C-alpha cells in the first residue's frame, strides 16, 4: 500500500539527485534540468501531503494551488534561463559554465 512516507522518500531522492546534478554537471543545460528536478521534487511533496493527510477540503486545495504556482514559475524561469544560455552560446560557442567567470572581483 502506498503511503505518505513513500511519496516523501521519492521526493527526497529526486531532490538529492537534483542537488548532486547542480554540484557536479558542467553543462548549463544539465544544471537547469537538475534545478527543474528539485522543483518537481518539492511539487511531489506538496501533492503527497494534500492527498494523504486528513485536511479539510479548503486546506487541501491550498497544496494544489501552490503546485500550480510552482509549475508556472518554473516555466517562466526556464524561459529566462534558456534565453541567457542561448546568448552565452552565441558569445562563447560553449555552454560550459566553468568558462564563464566574468562576474568576479
Amino acid at each position, binding site marked *: 500500500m502506498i503511503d505518505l512516507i513513500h511519496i516523501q522518500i521519492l521526493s527526497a531522492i529526486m531532490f538529492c539527485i537534483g542537488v548532486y546534478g547542480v*554540484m557536479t554537471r558542467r553543462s548549463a543545460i544539465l544544471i537547469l534540468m537538475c534545478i527543474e528536478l528539485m522543483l518537481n521534487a518539492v511539487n511531489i511533496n506538496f501533492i503527497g501531503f494534500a492527498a494523504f493527510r486528513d485536511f479539510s477540503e479548503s486546506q487541501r486545495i491550498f497544496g494544489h494551488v501552490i503546485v500550480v504556482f510552482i509549475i508556472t514559475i518554473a516555466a517562466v524561469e526556464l524561459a529566462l534561463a534558456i534565453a541567457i544560455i542561448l546568448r552565452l552560446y552565441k558569445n562563447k560557442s560553449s555552454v560550459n559554465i566553468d568558462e564563464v567567470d566574468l562576474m*568576479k572581483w
Partner: protein
Amino acid sequence: MGINLTYIPPIICGVSFVLTALFARKVPLASSLISVFTILCSFILFIFILTDFLSSDLNSIKFSIDWIVVSDMRITWGILLDSLSVTMLGLITLVALLVQIYSISYMKGDSRFGWYFSVHSLFAAAMITVVLVDNLILLYFAWELVGLGSYLLIGFWYEKRAASEAAKKAFITTRIGDVALLIGIILIFKSTGTFDISSIFHIARNGGISENILTISTFLIFLGAMGKSAQFPFHVWLPDAMEGPTPVSALIHAATMVAAGVYLVARMMPLFSLAPYVLDFVVFIGLFTFIFAGTMAIVMHDIKRVLAYSTISHLGLMMMSLGFMGVASAIFHLIVHGISKALLFLGAGSLMHEMDGETDIRKMGGLINKMPITAITFIIGSVSLAGIIPLSGFFSKDEILLTVFEKGGILILLPALAGAFLSSLYMFRLTFITFFGSLKNDNSKVGESPILMTLPLILLALLAIFMSILLLEISTFKGFIYFISGHKAHLNLLLIVFSSILSFVALILAWFIYIKDSKYLIDWYKSKMKWNYNLILNKYYIDELYQYIINQIIIRFAQFVALFDRLVVNDIGVDRSSLSIRFLGLRLKLIQTGKMHGYAISMLFGFLILILTWAIL
C-alpha cells in the same frame, strides 16, 4: 491710542534695518534718513505711550501672541509695559535719535556710511525689544542681538586692527556672562515651567522655586548683567570698545547697552529680593567696581577711556543701589547718567572731529575759546556727573547714597562717598585739562563743529540740567521715584550737605592741581607712589592677567584637546577603523571567484548549517 501701538517701535526699527541694509551701498544718505526717521517715529510713539500710560494710573499692561506652543510650554511674542519699560523706552529712543542725528554729520564721507545707520537701526530694534518683552526667552534673543549690534559697531572700522580686536574682546567677554544668563533662564524654566516674567514672579512669591535654585539662578542672571554692564571681572571690554566711532560709544557704551544689565537686574528684582545672598554680592560687586574704575579714570590720558572708566564706575553705583533694592534710584541715575554720559561722549566726538581724531587730553587744553558750544555743554555734562548741586546728576547720585545709607548703614556709605569723591575728581580733571589752561600750538586752527553736531549737544545739556524736575510732583505725576517704586521720595539734608561739600572739595582740589598747575601734589604722588601710579596706569594689570590665564591655561588645554583629537579621535577612531575595513575588503573580495559551483556549494552548506542550528536550538 498709544499703548496699543507699543509693538510698533521695535518692528519699524527692524524693518528699517532690513531696508537700509539692502540699499545702504547704493543710497547711503537715504538709508541714514530712513534710520533717523524710524527712530524719530519711535520717539513720538513713546510720547503717546507715556501720556496714555500716565493717564491709566500706572497699571502695567501685558499683551502677547503665541509663537511656539508645545504641550505645557508656550513661548510668546509679548510686551510688558510698566513704568520701568516706559522709562527705558524713552531713554533709548531719545538718545538713539540724538546720536543718529549727530552721526549724520560726524560720519559724513565714511565709506560705509549707510551700513553704519542700518546697524544703528538693528541695535535700536534689539534694545527696544530687550526692555519691552514679557518673557525671558525673547529677552535673551534680543539681548544677544544687542551684543551683535555692539560687536558690529565697535568693529565698524575693522581695517584698524585694534578695532577688530576690541570688537572680538567685547563680544567674547560679554558672551561669558550671556552663557550664565542662559543657564539661569533655563534653571528658572525648569522649576517654574514658564518663561513669562510676571508668572515667574507670581510662582516665586508663592514659594514655587526652592531657595537653592533661586539663589543659583539669580546669581547666574546677575553674571549676565555683569557682562553687559561691564562690572568688575568683566569690565575689561568697555575701555577697549572705545575703538568704535564716538557716537557709538555715546549710544551703546554709555546710555543703552551697558544699561541693559542694570535694567535686567531691576526687571528681575522680585526674584533677587528673595535671594539675599545674591543681593549682598550685587552690593559688593557694585561698590568695588564703583571705586576701582574711578581710580583708573583718574590717571588715563585718553579722553574716551576716561569716560569709559567713568561709565563702568557709575554702572557700579547703580548696581550697588539695586543690591539694596533701590530700583527707583538706580533707574533714575541710569537715565540721568545715560543723558549726561551721552552728552560727554558726543562732546568728546565733537573735539575729535575737529582735531583729526586726537584723543590724548595732554595734547588738548584751552579749547573753551575755540569751541564754545562743545566746551560749555561738555562742562555741563561733567558737572552734572560730578554731582554739583543744582544739576540732575547731583540728585540722582544723592538718591542712591540715601538708599545706601538707609539700607546699608554708615559702613557702606563711607566707601560709596569716597567713590563719589573720585568721580567728581576725575570729571573735573578731564574738563580742566581739556578746556582750560593754555592753548597748544597745534590746535590754533580748531573751530566749532557743524550745527547737526552741536544741536544734540545743546538738547542733551538742557536735559542734563533740568532732568531733576522729574523728581518733583507736578499735578497728577507724583515724582519719578513714585513712578517707579510706588513710594514717595524723601531727602536727607545732612547727606545732601555732606556730599555737596565733598564734590566742592574735589572741584577745588582739581582746580589747584590742573589749573593752578601746582605740580607739587602730582609730583609727590608720581615719585613717592610710583608703584601705585604705574599699577593704576596699567589698569591693575588685569588685561595682562587675563592674557596670562588665556595663554597658560586655556591655550594649553586647547592644545591638549587638539592633540587628543588628532591622535585618538582622528588617527585611531577614524583612520584606523577605515583602514581595517579596507584591509578586510581586500581579503574578502577573493571569495567572489565567479565559479558557479563554488556558490552552489556554499549555498548548500549555509542552508544545512541554518537547518542544523534551528534543529539544535
